[in-house]
């Protein structure tokens, strides 16, 4: 018996984790909400796909954990985990039929129970559910045992079908806006989800492409390395030119909504690059970074909007004022916090962010700042008659802004100033003992970051044509901080990747509204646990973190409090 237990241990363990997950997902209403939409029309809904994916994934994990103990045990474990997951749902349904769970958990509705049994009556449904669970486990176990190449192709092509299904509302309009290509979209999608034929085709196409890629990959690589260095350089250059070209045509290709997403991502890239200087380079934890965003936006609004009637400059005339006032406010807000370290700095800056928001909201300053009603009728930017009005047009404005800011960041990174910031991040006292003027260096970091943020704010105001105090809450600061850490602290490409992941993806998933932030939160935790160095870390940081992990056994003494981040 005990041996049995130990044989099944991993299966039971992973099964329980999976069980808790699926029951939670069911009770928070995710399964039911997702089942409204199909991934493949009439075949499988998103809710069911979610359950299946979890069951298969946990089965796979169970298999992986028992990989050393032979095929039989692997399969048993993954099947056990699948059965446990299904069993937990059966128990949930049973429990729900005895007591009224709904008086506490509002999503425990009869509709949910019927969904969980795939619409089959519970009398037969529970056996079906258990069988389905076992089957999922079996599939996972077999998958684990199959050839790696086959496995990768299968997983990738199936997940691309799922992704296409999840993003249907975005893909379909984008594709169908494209005259000739709209045929593809008609073939792929039915009114709710992918069409069955479309899904199969997509799956096959991806599988074939992957298969060819796996075959030819090495050949291409060796061919590239055999090229003379001048040839390699041309190819690389060509790559860059292509990249620039892609960036230039992107909004035309992507259509209205995706361009809008790109502009939002771009604004956050601007913000992220600014905060990257403050936090990533200089190590000053700033949680009130939104203050400068607000200052940029409000300065632009006050200077350009006819609604308040103080000034009516154009966007381009107002922009320098916005950026300069942003820089100045960076210095002014920087002075009081010069002597604070670590978390004291964090909370003091958080306070600044809130103070600015409360002030622009207040009735007290309403005659000058618009109060709760905000400021409207902010003109769009324009150059010689070309107006940056639609997302596709604003995109170029933001692209230019990003290019400018990336350029400055790159220049600063390996300069005397960048090194001074990094030295300060590492050890403030020693940095000072090496001749670095802490006051000036810190203030310069605050000012540069604030300037970038104000630039972003100015574009934001013009993009939105109106500013409201509610747009500048502390969550924005937190979001920016998250994106630079998730991207990889101190890394410029990291900021871009982080913005795409933490701002772009949630935008794409706007229709999953209620569950968007839940997934966002879970993803943040998972990301930090699995990849603490970030998605695209600075090369050196990557090495450092890996070192830290490999040597964590003989861990060093914890960092002296406060000083470091």
């Amino acid at each position, binding site marked *: 018996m005990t041996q049995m237990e130990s044989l099944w241990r991993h299966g039971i363990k992973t099964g329980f984790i999976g069980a808790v997950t699926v029951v939670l997902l069911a009770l928070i209403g995710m399964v039911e909400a997702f089942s409204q939409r199909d991934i493949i029309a009439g075949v499988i809904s998103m809710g069911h796909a979610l359950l299946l994916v979890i069951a298969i994934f946990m089965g796979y994990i169970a298999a992986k954990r028992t990989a050393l103990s032979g095929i039989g045990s692997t399969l048993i474990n993954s099947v056990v985990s699948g059965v446990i997951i299904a069993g937990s749902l059966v128990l949930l349904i049973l429990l729900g039929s005895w007591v009224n769970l709904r008086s506490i958990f509002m999503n425990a509705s009869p509709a949910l129970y019927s969904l969980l049994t795939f619409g089959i009556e519970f009398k037969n449904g529970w056996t079906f559910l258990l069988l389905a669970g076992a089957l999922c486990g079996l599939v996972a176990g077999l998958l684990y045992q199959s050839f790696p190449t086959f496995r990768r192709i299968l997983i990738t092509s199936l997940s691309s079908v799922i992704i296409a299904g999840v993003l249907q509302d975005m893909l379909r309009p984008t594709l169908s806006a494209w005259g000739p290509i709209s045929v593809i979209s008609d073939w792929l999608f039915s009114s709710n989800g992918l069409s069955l034929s479309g899904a199969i085709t997509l799956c096959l196409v991806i599988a074939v492409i992957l298969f060819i890629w796996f075959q030819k990959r090495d050949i291409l690589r060796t061919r590239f390395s055999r090229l003379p260095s001048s040839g390699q350089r041309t190819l690389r250059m060509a790559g860059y030119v292509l990249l620039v070209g892609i960036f230039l045509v992107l909004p035309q290709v992507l259509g209205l909504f995706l361009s809008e997403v790109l502009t939002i991502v771009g604004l956050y890239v601007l913000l992220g690059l600014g905060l990257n200087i403050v936090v990533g380079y200089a190590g000053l934890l700033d949680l009130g970074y939104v203050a400068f965003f607000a200052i940029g936006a409000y300065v632009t609004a006050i200077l350009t909007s006819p609604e308040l009637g103080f000034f009516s400059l154009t966007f381009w005339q107002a922009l320098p004022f916005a950026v300069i006032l942003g820089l100045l406010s960076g210095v002014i807000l920087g002075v009081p916090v010069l002597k604070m370290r670590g978390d004291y700095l964090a909370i003091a800056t958080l306070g600044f962010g809130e103070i600015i928001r409360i002030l622009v909201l207040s009735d007290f300053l309403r005659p000058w700042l618009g109060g709760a009603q905000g400021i409207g009728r902010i003109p769009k930017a324009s150059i010689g008659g070309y107006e940056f009005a639609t997302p596709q047009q604003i995109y170029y404005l933001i692209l230019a802004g990003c290019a400018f800011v990336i350029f*400055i960041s790159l*220049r*600063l990174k390996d*300069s*005397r*100033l960048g*090194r*001074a910031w*990094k*030295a300060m991040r*590492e*050890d403030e*006292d*020693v*940095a*000072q*003992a*090496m*001749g*670095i*003027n*802490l006051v000036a260096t810190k203030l*310069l970091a605050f000012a*540069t970051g604030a300037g970038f943020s104000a630039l972003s704010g100015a574009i934001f105001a013009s993009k939105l044509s109106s500013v409201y105090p509610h747009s500048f809450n502390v969550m924005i600061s937190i979001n920016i901080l998250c994106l630079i850490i998730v991207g990889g602290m101190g890394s410029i490409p990291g900021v871009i990747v982080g913005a795409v992941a933490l701002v772009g993806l949630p935008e794409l998933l706007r229709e999953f509204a209620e569950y968007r932030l839940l997934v966002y939160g879970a993803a943040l935790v998972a990301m930090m646990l699995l990849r603490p160095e970030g998605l695209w870390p600075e090369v*050196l*940081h990557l*090495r*450092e973190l890996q*070192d830290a992990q490999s040597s964590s056994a003989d861990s060093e003494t914890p960092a002296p409090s406060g000083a470091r981040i």
Partner: protein
Amino acid sequence: MAILSAEKMTKRFGGLLAIQELDIAIIENSIHSIIGPNGAGKTTFFNCVTGFYRPEEGRINFNSHNLVGLTPDRVVRLGIARTYQNIRLFPNLTALENILVGLHSHLKAGFFGIVVGLPSTRHEETEASKEAVRLLNFVRLEGKEDLLAKNLPYGDQRRLEIARALAARPKLLLLDEPTAGMNPRETQEMMDFIQHLRDALGITILLIEHQMRVVMGISETVTVLDYGKKIAEGTPDEIKSNPTVIEAYLGRGSAAEAR
């Protein structure tokens, strides 16, 4: 000719007298050691010189500048650089970057110059890199430019820290226990290296040391502190035979030789 001198310098921490009316003079181009039992105020003296602490009374003169009240970054610009008892490199910067930070006070590039990429800024940057590589070679760290400081072996870190201090082009170098944690062979190498430093660069070296072998081997003058007071000063031989010193060390049972 004294390059650094303190007159009646006193430093208190609350009620505790860390240093009491200290008078000390360091002769230019000499190697001068400060010794004393733990808590005698040696490192506190370093911190007062480099501007981290501010003595309550007295003066510290360096080449006719009064150092009291200057911030550490101003002090280093005058020509005083230091190392630390427990190595304090910038762990996540490369060896080369550590040196370049040391060069900070001798570079002029400003925000504008960096962003615009002025020719003078670029020139300065390439020169700085060259000098940094030269310094790395000087401390026998050639080829380790791109390693993170924290990944270097212990001895390399010590030498890198010295090189970083040298990058500030000091006239006076303060070394806080440069041989701490080293085995006899490494210690000997470090002694040779310190002497070589003084001879090759013509600078003054003030060091805190616990290993009597080092102190007696390379210093020209030795000052002994105990409870914040100077109890003796002289050549190594004079100190060896000074009864007060022997009592301070042996009398309280913390024999110097034991360390």
